[in-house]
């Protein structure tokens, strides 16, 4: 069974709201850098950045982060995950990094992303923004900005589909039998 949780318009409103929250919490965009986790997070990071620029009139640096090489399940998997590009073309030291992912689930991807980021420098702070928080954390990790909290069963699947991947934009929940 497939259920639509959020529409394209809902996603746009969430991004707009989170952009305002990020600016408010950090008292302006001056020290901000956005880093999206491959793949969904990268598109969301770009959108958040242009939203922040539209509100504040300043450019915010955007990077992309691939976490495959930092995963904790790599030695248990037969086939190693595809390594995508990591591109952080700015110095993250002393900056406030907004880490962006589409779905927050066990927290293991975020743990890997934190390790990966630390290899690039020593940021002043890292904050986390996600579109969906579906619960079931396995590590002590929480998001600073959440689009929508959606309680799920562990065997269900949540997918954030974005226009950039050439699909109809929506968030869907499918039950895994």
């Amino acid at each position: 069974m497939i259920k639509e949780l959020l529409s394209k318009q809902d996603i746009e409103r969430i991004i707009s709201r989170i952009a305002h929250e990020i600016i408010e919490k950090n008292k302006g965009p001056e020290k901000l850098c956005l880093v999206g986790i491959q793949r969904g997070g990268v598109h969301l990071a770009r959108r958040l950045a242009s939203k922040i620029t539209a509100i504040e009139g300043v450019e915010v640096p955007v990077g992309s982060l691939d976490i495959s090489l930092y995963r904790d399940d790599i030695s248990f998997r037969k086939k190693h995950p595809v390594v995508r590009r990591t591109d952080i073309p700015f110095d993250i030291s002393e900056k406030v990094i907004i880490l962006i992912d589409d779905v927050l689930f066990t927290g293991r991807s975020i743990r890997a992303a934190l390790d990966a980021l630390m290899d690039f420098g020593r940021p002043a702070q890292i904050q986390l923004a996600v579109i969906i928080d579906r619960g079931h954390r396995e590590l002590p990790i929480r998001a600073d900005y959440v689009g929508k909290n959606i309680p799920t069963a562990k065997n269900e699947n949540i997918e954030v589909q974005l226009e950039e991947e050439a699909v109809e934009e929506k968030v869907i929940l499918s039950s895994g039998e």
Partner: protein
Amino acid sequence: MPKDLVSMKDIAKEETEAIIDTALSFKDVLRRDIKKVPALRGKTVVNLFFEPSTRTKTSFELAEKRLSTDVINFSVSSSSVVKGESLLDTVRTIEAYGIDYLVIRHASAGVPHFISRITKASVVNAGDGINEHPTQALLDAVTIKEKKGTIAGLEVAIVGDILHSRVARSNVYCLMKLGARVRLVGPPTLIPLNPPSGVKVFYNMDEGMRGADVVMMLRIQLERMGKSFFPSTKEFFKYWGLSAERLAMANKDALVMHPGPMNRGIEIASEVADCPQSVILEQVTNGIAVRMAVIYMLQG
């Protein structure tokens, strides 16, 4: 992805392209301040080199360390092979240490293939005699793709001592798989009698240069030549060496490549080796990235 990388013939086109793309991602890692990722923590690699090698071994070792594997170097001069141990027993002993990857270089063709069949570890061929050197072909492909954007449809001239070159052999398989048009250029004594179908052969260097997008020079392997294949190195350069005049006959912006170590003044003019069209040092950098990709992607 298979367990081993022994021959470019065993790797499908899609897998070859996946290795090239992954290598480009690993190149990002090599540009950072901290050039090491924890991906293969707890895994062990043995570099088993039965033939002297400095650059390939260094490149593999760096790639392995960048992936956080534990690395052990097993070279022939310091091993029990000199005490009369058979190849089979050497491999069984190393395997009993509990290792995950074996990188092998040997002077005889077929040794990595033989070892891949008797061990559970993933085997990477780092050069076997005059047979193959697959990671060199892959790093050449990465370099061409990076510089030219694509490989399909390019005219690639492989020049010089084709007969003794494992680099040439692996490159022919790899480049043809990826849709390049390959030509072999050299004296008849140094070109195999039966080149693979689809490969063009030029016994005249000037003709071989015309229309080439990539000029891949090979090292004259004097150590593998029991007899004379050409009168003198001076004469070789005159007829088969890559001089600036000859390079000018190839397409504008043609890439100049060489697997190293170079014999300046024998197969390549010094000024050509250092010219802006030369990507010889980029090949070295890409070698580390490609070896990281191969070790990361093989499935044990």
